[in-house]
């Protein structure tokens, strides 16, 4: 379903990336961040509010420009790309999952998924099949307001899958969900990583990091740790919050 690179291939490469905000006294959101994520990796970026994790995700997804350093995603250096190239990059390389889902209220579940395919220009995508893969096979014709929060987030994941892009970026994907639904979403994201996508999840929920392949911890815009979960990778069934 997705156009994934071979596992182990580097999909995201950040070198000395920094980001400052403000014109007067600059606020440093990111400082000299080096990071690489391989295809098939499920990476959780962990940190408290204001640590720069969402800024990092926005940089990787080309939603924002870094103040310094270089970012190469899917072999494309986005640091100095033009506006047009960035649109093209987002269309072909990354797909987003947002905390507040951001699915289109005027489209049904299937149509929202179809949107992902249409945005990238992919033909032959069956939204029904993708929705079935995220457990919404029976809800294809429902509008967002007819779906629960967990279902809406699954539609958002299905939409991201429909793009077929090799990098999946998720910003607090379980932030608005209850525990059970949140675990279901994590399961889906893990599956995508297993299928070869580079999955980067940003969260402040330390519990989520326990099921990651790697945990990158940020504090005040700097990476303070990067490695497998301290207590070893846990199973989803072991999570609780």
């Amino acid at each position, binding site marked *: 379903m997705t156009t994934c690179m071979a596992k182990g291939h580097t999909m995201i490469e950040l070198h000395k990336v920094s980001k400052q905000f403000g014109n007067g006294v600059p606020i440093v959101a990111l400082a000299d961040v080096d990071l690489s994520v391989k295809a098939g990796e499920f990476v959780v970026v962990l940190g408290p509010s204001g640590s720069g994790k969402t800024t990092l995700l926005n940089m990787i997804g080309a*939603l924002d420009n870094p103040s310094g350093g270089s970012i190469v995603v899917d072999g494309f250096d986005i640091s100095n790309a033009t506006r047009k190239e960035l649109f093209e990059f987002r269309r072909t390389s990354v797909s987003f999952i947002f905390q507040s889902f*951001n699915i*289109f209220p*005027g489209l*049904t579940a299937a149509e929202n998924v179809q949107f992902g395919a249409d945005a990238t220009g992919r033909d032959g995508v069956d939204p029904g099949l993708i929705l079935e893969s995220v457990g919404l096979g029976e809800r294809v014709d429902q509008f967002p307001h007819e*779906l629960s929060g967990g279902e809406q987030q699954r539609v958002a994941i299905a939409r991201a899958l429909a793009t077929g892009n090799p990098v999946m970026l998720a910003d607090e994907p379980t932030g608005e969900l209850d525990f059970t639904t949140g675990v279901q979403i994590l399961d889906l994201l893990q599956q995508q990583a297993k299928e070869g996508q580079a999955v980067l999840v940003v969260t402040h929920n330390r519990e989520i990091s326990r099921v990651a392949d790697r945990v990158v911890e940020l504090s005040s815009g700097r990476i303070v740790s990067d490695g497998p979960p301290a207590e070893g990778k846990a199973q989803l069934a072991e999570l609780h919050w």
Partner: protein
Amino acid sequence: MKDWILLLRWSWRDLRKYWVKVIAIALVIGIGTGSYAGLTSTANWRRESNTASLDLLNMYDIRLQLAGESSMPTGELVAAIGGIEHLGWVKGSEERLVRPTQVDASTDGKTILVPGLMVGADITNGGPDINGWYIETGSALTAADRGAPIVLLDYSFLAHNDLAASGAITISGGEELTYAGGAMTPEFFMVVPDNTSTFAQGTYAGVFTSLETAQRLTGMEGAVNDLIVTVTSDGDRDVVAAEIEDAITARGVGVDVMMKEDDPAYRILVEDVENDQEMFGVFAFLIFVGAVMGAFNLITRLSEAQRREIGISMALGVSPRKIALRPLLVGAQIALLGVVFGVLVGVLIGQLMRSVLVTFLPLPIWTTEFQWNLFFWVAVVGFVIPFFAAAYPVWRAVRVKPIEAIRTGHLAARGGGLAPLLKRIPLPGDTFAQLPFRNLLRAPRRAILTTLAIAAVMAVLVGFLGSIDSFVGAIDRGATAIKGDSPDRLVVTLEGVLPVDAPGVAAIAGADSVGETSFALQIGAKVTGDEEVDLLVEILDLDNELWQPAIIGESAAERGLILSEAAAKDLGVAVGDTIDLTHPVRTGPTTFTFAGSEIVVAALHENPLRFAAYMDDSALELVNAVGLANIVYANPAPGYGAADVQRELFALDAVSSAQKASASADALDELMAQFVGILQAVALFVLLLAVLMAFNSASISFEERQREHATMFAYGVPVKKALRMAVVENTLIGVAATSIGFGGGLGMVWWVVNVTAKETMPDIGLAMELSPTTLGTIVGLGILAVAVAPVFTVRRMRHMDLPGTLRVME
């Protein structure tokens, strides 16, 4: 107190944040209220100006004209009044001599040779007391001018022909006269010669002079033929009229009695105010309703953006009164600005309408003050709308639990509106093609209000332009029908009914500048069918090579009456039917009586003038006038123009007037051009209203859907594509609004053509017409202007803060 100050400061920030929208919405209200006030003000202006002008010049109540060529010695008409029973009801009376004439007012660069009417009256006091002469330009006549070759000309004739305030003219008989100035008088407030064509100020001259001068110039020394009378307020005019008529008839002279209300100038001037007002009122009301709907919709949407903030305030225990204050203050700002704009637009439209009125209806007194009374109530509505519109979402928000109002994300997801309706209707194209339709159906109330608001103003635009097209179309059709294959043809009116071989008539054909000629006899007649219609019948040789009326379809008979479509419609007859014609029959050299005949409707002609009718020359036997004519059609000889013919024929005794056949239509066309220009300026306001509403709607839609756009951009959808979707959505609104507006506008044109114009201008057969220019304007502006409105949001789309927008909960 502090909290109120905070709220005020907060609302000030709102104003700064929304200032473009606040001004744009205020303009919508301003144009709506201003247009209403400006357009409806005209009725009051006209009523007040008519009354003031007619009072100033003391228009007659009763006019008695001696029949035919009859006249009586000076003083005898007044003497006849002296013997009537109710003399006490007679407030005043004046004898006059009124005779048709020809006027040569040509200047160096322009030939002006027109028929006219000479009015001789007592000028002992500087002018007549009844039907006075108001000097608009130049100087008045004095008692010393009695008998002198000095006259006044109708001011509107001077103005229309750009003539100097004083100068020289020549009249029938070749006498040169000095005109001292331009005067206005009630009979010429509307120039309606022979009750046939309106707005003839350019082609028909009023010549006002002393009774003595008129008597000398017409060769009717010591004679009068016209009596005008005013009646006291408690007097019965009908009784007075009947008694005077009897008194004059008893002296052996026939007399035609006309009451003030039957005077065509008075009728069109006074009575049509209400009809015109009805039309303007409908236009103004629609503009107003469109603006109200548009403003309500836009302000509601603006206030709804604060829904979550209202919820937070509720959660913090702020009273609904205080919660309502902020949105209401935005409403107040819009309301205040709207009223200011409304006054400005009202004054501007008023000035435009004033220039139309002053041009079309020159009066001594034009009262065109801003109608504060009228505007006050419109302003009240314009002021109240923003408050209601702002209060509505507040009222909705405070009725739900605070937790629901502040809820974010999926829990706040709203229903799909009517979008589910489209679920089972497969539309072609990908999701990008579907989204504009879905977005519209998601918020049906909003979409419908926006559509109807734009539709209302589009209806006005179609109504306005369509009505103009129908008028202009009728004039053009009339001109085309009259011109036929001889566009330069002149209609030479003879001094009376003359034998076609009379020397005077032969002199016309023999003039150097005259080419082909043919004769006609023009008679007044009446036909009776479903209603009674007055006709001006021209009896002519239908096989003549100079000009024949253009026939619609096939003739049913070789002989018979050729009617206009309008007359046939009003009479309820078709080609081949037989109708009763009351027509004159000649009983002596200059005397006629009336007789009735059954006549076949032989055909219909293309001239839209209802009274125009034709018969073949066999009908001359019917009126006992074989070999007689009172009209000669003449084409200029090769190398000569119409002006040459007019100049040469002016000197002939047998000629009463010589005019280009298309003169009236051309003059009306010229007048309409000014009228159309000004109405188009009003139409521009209407258009601006539609564009403003479309722009505001697009702008607010953009803000409401910022997160959706940001999501699209996050998925790499180009700005161009997102913009295209917004354009498609607006195009759908534009198409729907224009279609509804077009339908409504056509209804208005129908109403103007078939109801209003039928009452005000029964003699013009209007047909509903929409010119290609109008259609282009409506489609181009109604659909295109609305469709491209989102383009104004492209800068904001391009500079959107994607991360910030995507994370915003509300």
